[in-house]
Every structure is written in C-alpha cells, then in structure tokens.
C-alpha cells in the first residue's frame, strides 16, 4: 500500500481511469441485477448489487473530486513520489509487463523451470546492466534455490511443459 507514493495532482490519465471504473461499475451493477433482480431482499443478487452500487457511487465521487489536491498536501523529499516518473506507463514498466504476460502465458507449454529461467535471464539482462555471465549465474542460482524450496522441500507439483523428463 503505497499510500503516499503518488500525490493526487498532475497525474495524467487519472480521469480516464476513473471513467473506465465508472463504466465497469455500471456494467457490474447491471450484471448483479440480472442474477435475481429485486425479487427478494435475501436473494443471491442483493449483496453483489450493494457492492456494485457502492463502487459506482464512490467512483462518481472520485471522478468529481479529481484532480483537486488535498489541502496542505506535500510531497516529502526522498519519498518515491518526489523522484517518480510522471508517465503512467514508462517504457521500462511497459516492457516488463510484456515480459510478465509472456512468462505467465508460456508457463503451461514451456514448463515452470525453463519458462522462469528465460524470464529471469531476460529481466536481469534488461534491468540489471551487468555482464551477461553475472545475469546467467544469478538466474541459475535463483532457479536452483526455487526448485529446491518448492519442488524438493514443499513438493509442489510445478508445470513441466514440453521438457517433462528433464524437469521433474
């Protein structure tokens, strides 16, 4: 919970994000109403309708209150907000998000170890800015520790993927 990480002023795209939340809340309210309508006050649809209503009303309030900063609000020196990149999705975050999506989607077919190895190596090479062999060694060491901890100690069955016989 980075409650003071990001100040409420000057954030691009916030109103668009809240507008999306309003549309989502309205759609959720509609779907909640479809569950059982207003037939009974104890029907399965009542609580979802209440939750969606609170979402819709609070999102409308948030939209109305944005982007007015809280009175006296300051960005303390040294906090992440003071040094933060003002863009919503900086290139580094966008590329890592693509890495994470590919990592998760490829897990069933590639298997956990191979997939995680590729993800860690690619991420270390991109983020760490150290020689390739250091990234490779760190990846191999991390994989060994994770494998020992989860597969050997906790006996968690991890996706084996195409290289079933190699990584059990």
């Amino acid at each position, binding site marked *: 919970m980075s409650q003071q990480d990001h100040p409420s002023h000057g954030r691009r795209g916030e109103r668009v994000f809240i507008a999306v939340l309003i549309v989502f809340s309205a759609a959720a309210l509609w779907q909640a109403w479809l569950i059982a309508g207003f037939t009974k006050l104890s029907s399965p649809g009542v609580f979802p309708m209440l939750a969606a209503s609170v979402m819709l009303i609070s999102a409308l*309030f948030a939209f109305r209150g944005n982007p007015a900063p809280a009175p006296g609000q300051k960005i303390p020196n040294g906090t992440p907000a003071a040094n933060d990149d003002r863009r919503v999705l900086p290139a580094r975050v966008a590329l890592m998000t693509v890495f994470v999506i590919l990592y998760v989607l490829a*897990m069933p077919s590639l298997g956990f170890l191979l997939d995680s190895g590729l993800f860690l190596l690619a991420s270390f090479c991109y983020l760490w800015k150290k020689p390739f062999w250091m990234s490779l060694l760190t990846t191999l060491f991390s994989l060994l520790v994770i494998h020992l901890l989860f597969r050997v100690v906790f006996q968690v069955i991890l996706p084996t993927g195409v290289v079933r016989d190699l990584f059990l």
Partner: protein
Amino acid sequence: MPDALSFFAIAWLDPWLVMLTAAGTFAGIYVGAIPGLSVTMATSILISFTFKWEVNEALALISGVFIGGVYGGSRTAILLNIPGAPSAIASALDGYPMAQQGKAGEAIGLTTLMSVFGGFIGILALALFAPVISGFALMFNSRDYLLLGLIGITLVGTLSGESFAKGAFAGALGVLISMVGLDPMTAEGRFTFGSVTLMGGIPYIAAMIGFFGVAEALVQLRQLDLPAVRQKIGRILPEWSSIKRYFWLALRSSGIGTVIGALPGTGGDIAALLAYDHAKRSTRNPEHPFGRGATEGLVAPESANNAAVGGAHIPMLTLGIPGDAVTAVIIGALFIHGLKPGPLLLIETPHLFWFIVGSLTLANCFLLLFGLTGVRIFTRIVECPKAVMIPLIIVLSAVGTYAIQNNVTHVYWMLLFGLIGYFMKIYGFQVGPVILGVILGPMMDSNYRRAMLGARGDISTFLWNFVSHPITFVLSLALMGILLSQLPWVQQWRRRRTDRQRPAT
C-alpha cells in the same frame, strides 16, 4: 490443575517435540516472510507433512508454524511493502515507511518484542478464559458479523490513501470479486457467464499475491534507479524507554487482538486493523504522523495479530469454528488426526488442550529467539538490487499462486489483478481494502442474508434489529462513527482543531 500442568509440560520436556516446535516456528517465520508465500500456504503445505505423524508431534509443528507464520508476514510488509498475510496489511502502513527511513532493524526488533508480548497475552487468555470468551462469542449473531466485516473494510479504507471514495471503491471491488462463482446458499451462478472456471470462484490468495506482489513489483520498477536504503542494523533490541512507552498500547492492542481473534470468522486481519485504528485515535503526538512511520502504528497491529493467534484457538478448539483461513486449515488437520474440535474437546481430551497451550507458549519463546537473531541477515533483502529482486518477486508470486491448487488459471488471475493493482496504486487507490473485501465478502454476504431471513424479509424489522440488540447497537454506532468521521465538514473541523492545538504545543 496438576494434570493441566503436566500436560502443559509435555511440550517442554520431550526434546523431539521441542525440536519440532522450534523447526515449525523457524519455517513459519521464513516461509511466511517470502514474498508470494502466504502464511495460509505455508501452514497448509507444512501441515501436509504431519498427516502420518503422532498427534503431539503434529500439534507441536502446527503451533510453531502458526505463531511463526503470523509474525513472518510482517517482515515483508516492513521491508518490501508486501504483507505476507492479511494480518500484516496494517503493519505495512507504518512499517514500510520506517524501513524507507533506514529503521528496518529497529522496526523488526520492536515488532518481534511486541509480537511475543501479544502472543503471550493471547495464550494466557486461551488458558484462563477459553470457556468465558467462547460463551461471549456465541452471543454474536449474523448482524454483528456483518457489521464487523463492514467495520473492517471501512477502517482500512479510511486509514490511509488520499480519499475515502477511493478506499470505499476498493473495498466494494473486493467484495464484488468474492461474489464471483456459485452462491454457497442456493448454488446459483453469480458473474459466471456460463464459464465452469468462473463457477469455482476467484481464490483470494491469487488476488492477494496479484495486488500486493505483482502490482508492487511493477510500481517498484518506476523507481529502479533510486539507490536502495541502507538499513541501520546497529541496534535491534529496542531501548527500555521505548518498551515502557509502548507498553500500555501493546497491552490494549493485545486485548483487542485476543477478543477479535476469539470471534468466530474474524482473525488477525481485523484485529490488526482495529488495533491500528485504536492506536491512531489514542496517540496524541506520535513522533512521525501515522502512515509515515509512526512506531505506534507498528506496535499496535503487531501485538494484536499475534494475540489473535491465542484468541483464534478459542473458537477453534471450543466451538470448532475457524477464526480465519489459517485456523480453517488447522481444523482440517486436527480432524485428520482424529481430534474433534468443539465444545467436548475440553471435556473429552483436556490433555490435548493443555498440550496445545504448552506448544504455543514454547513456540512464542522460540519466536523471540529467531525473531531477534535473524534480523541482520534479513534486512540485507532490501539492499539487494531491485533489478534482481523484482523479477524474483514475480517468479515467487507465480509459483506461490500456482501451488494453491496446481492450477495455472490462478496464475492468470494473479496477473490480471497485478495489472489492475498497478493502475490502482498509480492513481492513489489502495489495494488493502480490495483484499479485505475479497476475504470478508462471503462472510458478510451470508450473514446479511441470514439476518434478512431472520427478519422474514421485512426491511423495517431488519433495521430495527440493529438498534434493539445491545451488541449490534454498539457495533452500529462504531460503524456510523467511522463513516461520519469521513464527512468533509467533520474533517475540516478536525483539521482546524489540530491547527489550533499545534501552536499551543
């Protein structure tokens, strides 16, 4: 009484049982502290080893894992802002800012001491007041549980963040997420869109790891170039003056933790939040404002959530009702070992009750030992380069989510919640209320419907019941007080009053 003492002593005198308790506590602390590994997961996986063991051996390990796991969750909350368990959500509010100020060693030292103190209070209550407290808990009805859930979510929505509207949205979103799946009372589909996958619901651990693990990792990427804060670890043991200063707060928070933990269906998460709120309201001049590294904001939830462990054993052992997700797992393990948690447990198998009390006490002593000795190594985590830490957090989050049910769909959920959580964090929405909503949503829904059925569907009777029953009335007043305190004119009045007091002090 001599019998009780001899049963109590078994846990302390058998070297093998002492070793198992120590191993359980150690594993609980470190597994609970690994980002992506929740205490529920640690408990369920570690307990699965014990199914073929003797009852005493299994109970010794379980006690250690539970005590260690609840405490361990706070370490990642302090060092990485990723609570290892819902009960550590409140600890992150001030613990993480303390670590950012380079006071991680001090924070963990104080956390350890207060957790142990809270733990002893909870165990003492379990030993002395189990029958009385379970009787009081039985007086709570469905309306009261609904109100407790609402108070829990509203509290975390008001405690931090930049606007109550955003906190309320986050809490309601969590409740909505928890509604996905088949209705447990009528088996009617809710938000399932005919999909079999959605009928099974969305596991809260996937949501928790997504919102806290993946989203936090992505947010941290924005500040990759910032140098890691070097932690001052010169002093771990808190000064005597600090202990004296926070003693009464820790005692009050432990009381809150014990009582809340003893209520069936509520556990360390609500206990920690209520204690945090209590600290915020009762502390006049904190050294740092709450949410920016107030020591009181760490002492209160930490003593409360460990006190709730002893408290949670009360309904678990005397009523057979779990206090939270972890105790639900433990009850399952007790049944597998042939025990029958419930009102007859104290009468039929008193030796097991006292053995559990002995094991918990011993585990609490080991917590002090392992908690204070491992700090130096542990604080090195934050000095690890973020470029290495962030990809590892994502991998651990993925494997932790997958391990819940060996289901890759849960990992997809985790990814989705991680992405949503990233934008929510960027735009000042808190993710704590979302998780609380996901966990408490089903409990609130079922209790609301029971209360409504109890009122025979009549809205006026339903509302009248909120003022006509003493416990319900007190809880309703508390909820109203929290909501009213968020009104703009009340906030302005409080701000003016604070400004007036400041020049005087």
